[in-house]
């Protein structure tokens, strides 16, 4: 820069030509912009100085007017520029920064409403100072006195007894301080309309305590009495006039505090508007007589036998178990003041600290790591210090561990980071840190109070903060931390996604992510009322503060042990504790908890759990294993010769394999806590039932022993391909490839495919004899012999079919093949509508069509006419679009979909199904759901559903192709159970704004460039569909939404998803009825056509089939004898055909809905626009009825002739329908 300046000075002013002048100005403009660009990197004042200097030199340049003109084009001041640069450099993007700026004030208390609260706090302060002291007295006696005033003393376990020889007393507090987030102005609005917490630390005078008070909860009893006295005084006070209640964090009586909430009155101190509560926490002063070295986590401070058996001497105390959580609870009463100072220091050190903390807490609140009325993750109540300590760890670094080298010491981050960067760093820590194995000691200037070895005894996670030197994760189950880790990883994935199409901001900060169904692979609802721990110890009960806490801690550790690597997270959830009245001494514990599991797809469905070897030296390991599993543990010899203790989980079907983790949980709960199966509820089985055939039908299949399922279908397909390939000598062209395009060959059909032979069919009732044909595409080698005419091509195809069919029947005994010459609807000669129907000897039906690659060119010729061959000749006259043109257009669209897109789609979906075991199940459930609500098929294609479901498995920009490593894909954070996948899709459909479309990167980045050369497939301009689901190879997103849904149906899907979602939410109340989600309400339909279930070949697929109609005999016992030989009719479904015909015939009159899976009614609504009378038109397109002429008007008016249409329906569906119901 200085060089340039010098250069400018060198140019002599007087003899400067205008040309040079111009150039000079240019350079200066350049200079300006360069500066502003650089400046963002510089410090503020330095940049300012430079800036000023240049503007100064600018003034020397003569033509100022021109210069300022130029300058105005530039984005104004450097200040602003720097802000803009910062936003895009230090934050994710400028819009992200702006959104953060808007978000933050919304979660903070409004400054204008603070004064009444402050006035109240002053009043409270002076009031507390003047509470009269209470003379020392026996704890029980003191409690009785207080109880008369309606205040119970929340003594913790072990309760004081009559023999107790110490006394409780009260003296006014020696100090009152405002502490916590409110004092530091980092309060974040809590979830579910809870109030801001204003923590008031009330220091209890040292004179109340003695040295030995750390033993046996004596300190807590004294604190409890102190608290109760305060409560009684405040409650009585007329001056304060406020509601007082107790609240115990995590149901731990030792952590009880007073909660003051304003009464609705109009005093000046009424702080209702700020929506806050004042919490009074009695704390211990730093120089109290209680010796801190006694409170190290390895110390035992509960002498149970002292209480029961006084004769024991002190030497026995060494044998006592340590009481880490008791000790931590005591240490916590020391912490608030230290923490206050520590946060303040951090705020001074790092300007972005407060914002980052707020972001982190919003993030955590949205995910249930806080108080709330919905299901919250256990262990995060009152976890305020934990959140800022994470940031403190990042900023200050970690304490040097004695063994650790410099290399593996965690590095601290810079203090100049932006709030977003700090937030992300915190997530990074949460996502990467292994809480189970690694202990964290935040660096503290004075060093830590207790050496790390002291902590080693506990099984808990350890995170010792720098200020209070307590373990902030005491009482937080490891399972909750696993979930935290999972969530952090998920959020990081979203934030790091380069190719993310939308704005991640909403998903990270604004969305409530506490919904159980989308969060966990399995949710178990457990009723704890009858729980009896097998080996409960009084010691752990007292250490954890209450029996419930001890129970939950033990459930968590046993489940974690039992599930092992099956799950990524085992989390206990329950609503957080609520304030209780002063007369209730002890907090109530939750009766019903939820256990959420997130599977590790690698191991979750393992059938055998291996234990230690039988001959192992380690007797204890064997003993532990047997103790964990009880009678389930058995000694087994494995193929590789090892003899191991093991547990085997019996499953009979593939569906049941997905139940193994929940079976493990049930078993463990039953063994260790005697919680019976009836008290544990999962919803898996009811979901499974939806995808299964009714038992009466599947029994026949089981008995016949045919190979069924996707595996059977694939084998049949392979055999067929082999059989056709063998015919090469008999066919004019040899077969190149056979591509499957059926959902039955890619694991995504609702029902697993089944074959049907005529012998089997005769065993089944007539309404269970549907045989679904599997669609495949034959491609022959290229040949010049194909005719150059589209109609002739179709004729040749028929000839091919005939040839294949007759030779195939000769070569494979028992196989039947037929040529299907059309679909009965389309009369077009150029449409590829013929196919070959093959039924293999095993009873599998295939429907084959032939792909000829020149077809599309021939169709293009018809579509483009002359111009396709000679595009440079522009014809003057607008050609009339003939019917032929539209026919060809339709044929081409059909061709592209079936022969180009379908095989590709099939391959991609099949790959995905191989990689993610939950994907096919998800698709099947969603299809079943849409079908049962009469929308699938008629309005929404199968493929688009597959695409939407796929988006949950590939969305994070990670595409799955056939060569992707299976190991890698296992790491992805995708749903691992079909129930979770289903909930995700429902949630998506509920939230989706379809105008925005959905992009699914199904084919991977490699496929993208190829798409440009592809001609646009949807040439039809007016597309009825409002959904837009695009892939790399289908930019328009209409290949699979060609048949809808239109606006009406899209709204319907939205409404259904909403209702279903609400139903799924019922899981939290434990009242989810899965079946009810799949039952369609029929009240909205104008016409309801009831079909006769006995003639529907697919009735056995019906979601709510009446099993009495599915018996072979039917009504007349003697009728069945007649038809012994049953002809197979693959793909024959008259109800579907009728529905298709009705849809076609009444397209402008009625909107029809039907469940393709054996639905027994068709619903229809009138087009509302036809209700009005309208003038008669020849091509009106609906059946009408003339109305009385209005004299004034000349035109004849007509109105919809509803009754005639109903009778037409009756006529069209003669023999199929039972009755037609009309709704007014």
């Amino acid at each position, binding site marked *: 820069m200085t060089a340039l300046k010098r250069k400018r000075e060198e140019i002599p002013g007087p003899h400067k030509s205008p040309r040079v002048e111009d150039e000079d100005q240019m350079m200066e403009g350049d200079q300006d912009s360069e500066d502003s660009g650089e400046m963002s990197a510089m410090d503020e004042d330095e940049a300012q100085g430079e800036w000023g200097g240049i503007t100064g030199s600018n003034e020397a340049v003569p033509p100022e007017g021109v210069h300022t003109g130029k300058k105005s084009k530039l984005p104004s001041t450097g200040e602003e520029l720097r802000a803009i640069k910062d936003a895009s450099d230090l934050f994710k993007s400028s819009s992200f920064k702006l959104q953060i700026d*808007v978000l933050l004030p919304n979660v903070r208390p409004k400054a204008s409403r603070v004064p009444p609260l402050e006035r109240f706090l002053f009043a409270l302060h002076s009031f507390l100072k003047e509470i009269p002291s209470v003379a020392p007295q026996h704890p029980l006696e003191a409690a009785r006195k207080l109880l008369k005033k309606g205040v119970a003393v929340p003594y913790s376990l072990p309760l004081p007894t009559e023999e107790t020889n110490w006394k409780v007393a009260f003296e006014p507090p020696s100090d009152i301080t405002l502490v916590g987030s409110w004092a530091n102005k980092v309060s974040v609005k809590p979830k579910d309309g809870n109030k801001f917490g204003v923590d008031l630390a009330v220091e209890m005078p040292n004179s109340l305590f003695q040295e030995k008070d750390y033993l046996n909860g004596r300190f807590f009893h004294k604190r409890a009495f102190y608290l109760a006295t305060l409560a009684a005084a405040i409650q009585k006070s007329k001056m304060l006039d406020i509601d007082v209640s107790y609240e115990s964090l995590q149901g731990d009586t030792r952590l009880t505090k007073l909660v003051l909430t304003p009464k609705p009155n109009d005093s000046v101190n009424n702080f209702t508007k700020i929506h806050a509560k004042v919490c009074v926490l009695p704390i211990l002063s730093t120089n109290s007589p209680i010796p801190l070295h006694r409170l190290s986590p390895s110390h035992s401070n509960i002498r149970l036998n002292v209480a029961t058996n006084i004769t024991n001497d002190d030497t026995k105390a060494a044998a006592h178990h340590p009481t880490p959580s008791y000790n931590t609870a005591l240490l916590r009463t020391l912490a608030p003041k230290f923490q206050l100072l520590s946060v303040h220091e951090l705020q001074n050190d790092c300007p972005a600290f407060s914002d980052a903390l707020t972001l982190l807490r919003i993030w955590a609140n949205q995910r249930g790591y806080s108080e709330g009325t919905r299901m919250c993750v256990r262990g995060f109540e009152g976890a305020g210090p934990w959140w800022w300590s994470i940031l403190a760890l990042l900023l200050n670094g970690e304490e040097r561990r004695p063994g650790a080298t410099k290399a593996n010491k965690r590095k601290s981050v810079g203090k100049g980071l932006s709030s977003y960067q700090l937030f992300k760093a915190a997530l990074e820590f949460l996502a990467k840190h292994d809480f189970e194995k690694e202990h964290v000691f935040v660096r503290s200037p004075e060093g830590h109070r207790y050496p790390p070895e002291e902590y080693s005894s506990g099984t808990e996670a350890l995170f010792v903060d720098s200020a209070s030197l307590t373990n902030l994760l005491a009482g937080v189950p490891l399972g909750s931390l696993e979930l935290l880790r999972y969530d952090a990883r998920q959020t990081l994935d979203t934030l790091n996604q380069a190719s993310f199409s939308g704005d991640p901001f909403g998903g990270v900060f604004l969305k409530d992510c506490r919904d159980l169904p989308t969060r966990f692979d399995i949710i178990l609802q457990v009723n704890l009322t009858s729980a009896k721990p097998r080996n409960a110890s009084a010691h752990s009960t007292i250490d954890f503060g209450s029996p419930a806490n001890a129970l939950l801690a033990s459930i968590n550790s046993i489940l974690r042990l039992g599930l092992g690597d099956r799950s990524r997270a085992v989390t206990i959830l329950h609503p957080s504790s609520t304030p209780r009245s002063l007369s209730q001494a002890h907090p109530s514990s939750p009766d019903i908890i939820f256990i959420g599991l997130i599977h590790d797809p690698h191991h979750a469905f393992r059938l055998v759990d291996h234990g230690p070897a039988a001959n192992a030296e380690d007797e204890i390991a064997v003993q532990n294993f047997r103790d964990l599993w009880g009678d389930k543990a058995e000694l087994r010899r494995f193929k590789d010769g090892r003899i191991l203790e093991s547990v085997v989980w019996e499953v009979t079907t593939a569906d049941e394999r997905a139940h193994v983790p929940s079976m493990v949980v049930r078993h463990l709960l039953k063994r260790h806590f005697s919680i019976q199966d009836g008290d544990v509820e999962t919803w898996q089985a009811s979901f499974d039932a939806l995808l299964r055939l009714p038992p009466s039908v599947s029994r026949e299949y089981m008995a016949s022993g045919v190979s069924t399922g996707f595996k059977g279908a694939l084998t049949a397909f392979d055999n067929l391909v082999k059989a056709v390939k063998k015919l090469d000598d008999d066919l004019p062209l040899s077969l190149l490839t056979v591509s499957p395009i059926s959902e039955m060959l890619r694991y995504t059909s609702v029902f697993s495919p089944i074959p049907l032979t005529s012998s089997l069919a005769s065993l089944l009732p007539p309404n269970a004899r549907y045989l679904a044909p599997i669609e495949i595409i034959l491609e022959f080698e290229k040949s010049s012999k194909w005719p150059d005419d589209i109609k002739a091509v179709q004729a040749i195809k*028929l000839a091919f079919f005939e040839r294949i069919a007759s030779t195939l029947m000769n070569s494979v005994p028992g196989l039947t093949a037929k040529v299907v010459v059309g679909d009965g609807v389309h009369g077009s000669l150029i449409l590829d509508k013929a196919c070959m129907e093959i039924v293999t000897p095993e009873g599998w039906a295939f429907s084959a069509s032939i792909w000829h690659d020149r077809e599309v060119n021939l169709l293009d010729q018809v579509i483009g006419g002359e111009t396709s061959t000679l595009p440079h000749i522009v014809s003057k006259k607008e050609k009339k679009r003939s019917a032929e043109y539209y026919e060809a257009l339709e044929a081409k669209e059909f061709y592209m979909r079936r022969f180009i897109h379908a095989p590709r789609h099939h391959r991609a979906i099949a790959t995905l199904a191989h990689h993610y075991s939950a994907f096919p199940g998800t698709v099947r459930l969603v299809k079943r759901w849409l079908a049962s609500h009469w929308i699938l098929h008629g309005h929404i294609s199968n493929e688009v559903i597959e695409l939407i479901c796929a988006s949950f498995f590939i969305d994070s920009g990670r595409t799955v192709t056939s060569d992707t490593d299976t190991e890698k894909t296992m790491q992805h954070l995708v749903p691992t159970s079909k129930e979770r996948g289903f909930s995700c899709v429902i949630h998506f459909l509920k939230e989706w704004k379809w105008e925005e479309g959905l992009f699914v990167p199904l084919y991977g980045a490699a496929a993208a460039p190829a798409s440009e050369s592809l001609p646009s497939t949807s040439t039809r301009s007016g597309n009825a569909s409002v959904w837009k689901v695009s892939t790399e190879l289908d930019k328009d997103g209409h290949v699979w939404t060609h048949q809808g849904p239109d606006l009406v149906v899209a709204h319907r899907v939205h409404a259904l998803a909403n209702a279903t979602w609400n139903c799924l939410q019922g899981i939290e109340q434990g009242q989810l009825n899965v079946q009810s989600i799949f039952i369609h309400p029929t009240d909205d339909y104008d016409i309801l056509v009831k079909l006769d279930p006995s003639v529907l070949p697919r009735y056995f697929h019906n979601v709510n089939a009446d099993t009495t109609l599915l018996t072979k005999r039917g009504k007349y016992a003697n009728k069945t004898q007649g038809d012994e030989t049953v002809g197979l009719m693959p793909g024959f479904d008259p109800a579907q055909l009728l529905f298709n015909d009705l849809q076609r015939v009444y397209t402008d009159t009625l909107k029809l809905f039907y469940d393709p899976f054996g639905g027994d009614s068709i619903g229809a609504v009138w087009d509302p626009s036809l209700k009005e009378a309208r*003038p008669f038109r020849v091509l009106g397109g609906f059946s009408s009825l003339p109305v009385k002429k209005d004299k004034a008007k000349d035109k004849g008016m*007509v109105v919809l002739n509803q009754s005639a249409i109903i009778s037409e329906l009756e006529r069209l569906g003669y023999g199929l329908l039972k009755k037609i119901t009309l709704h007014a």
Partner: protein
Amino acid sequence: MSTIPSNVSGFTVLPIKYSSTATHYLYARSHVSKADARKVLPEGRTLFLVNVPPDATERELVLFFKHSGTVEKVIFNFEVKEPHHEDSDSEDGEGDEDAMDEDAADEQPRKRRKTQPPAAPAVIPLPAQPLRHFRKTGSSAYVIFLDSSSLERALASTSKPRAWPKSSEEPSGLAHYRALYDSLRPPLDAVRAFADSSIELYEYELAKSKQKSKYRKGEAVVDEDGFTLVTRGGAYGKTLGGGVGVASKRFQRSGETARNRGNKKAKKEKEGFYAFQKAEKQRSNLIELKRKWEEDKVKVEKLKAARRFKPY
């Protein structure tokens, strides 16, 4: 129901009694001829019907008008068919296989008339069954009577609804679908006969059109202005005129010449060569940055207005 007017916009209303409660209404008018359709639809004895029942068959309409006179034939949905179907007979509603063979059958006689070649091979049709064909509701049809007096009678007799005759020959409902299913799967030898004869016909037509074409192989195509048409040839690069360079396919498609020719020139100037270019670039970058910032601001303001930023 007595208030139903007897005619609407010039159409006579013909009530049909479906059942005791439901009445369907046909709108009938004597057909007014258009120049091109005169041959097929004789004026004076053709009745134009609107709102024909969707499942009506020719037989049913014949039966319905039996009382007014004998019907020669019925043509459904005439207007939407393309002109060359004019001389097709009325069977085109009878399912696709019929359509297929009738289509082939009606095309060739026309051409024969002009050129008088040796007899064309006939397509052996697929076995056809009488089947209903469902049309869109509210469609139209022409009924051609044998004489004009029947037409008058048909238009006059509107007084009381007559029952809709039901032809038993074409099944309906479930039986229809069974019959359709079977008829779509004809015996293999019938398929072969049909396919073979269709291909024969195609080859015959191909030969005929080659013969008919006024351009012979190797002869230049000269239009009336005297210009010779030069196009790309077939698969092996034969051009009709021969020996003349023809625009590439790429050019034909897009109208652009090959990219390497034009682009060379444009690339000559380096981008960051002059200082002013750099300056300009930086300036525009900054302006762009600012613009985006402002855009984002507006967007966020909008979201704020929609109260989106209340997380809970």
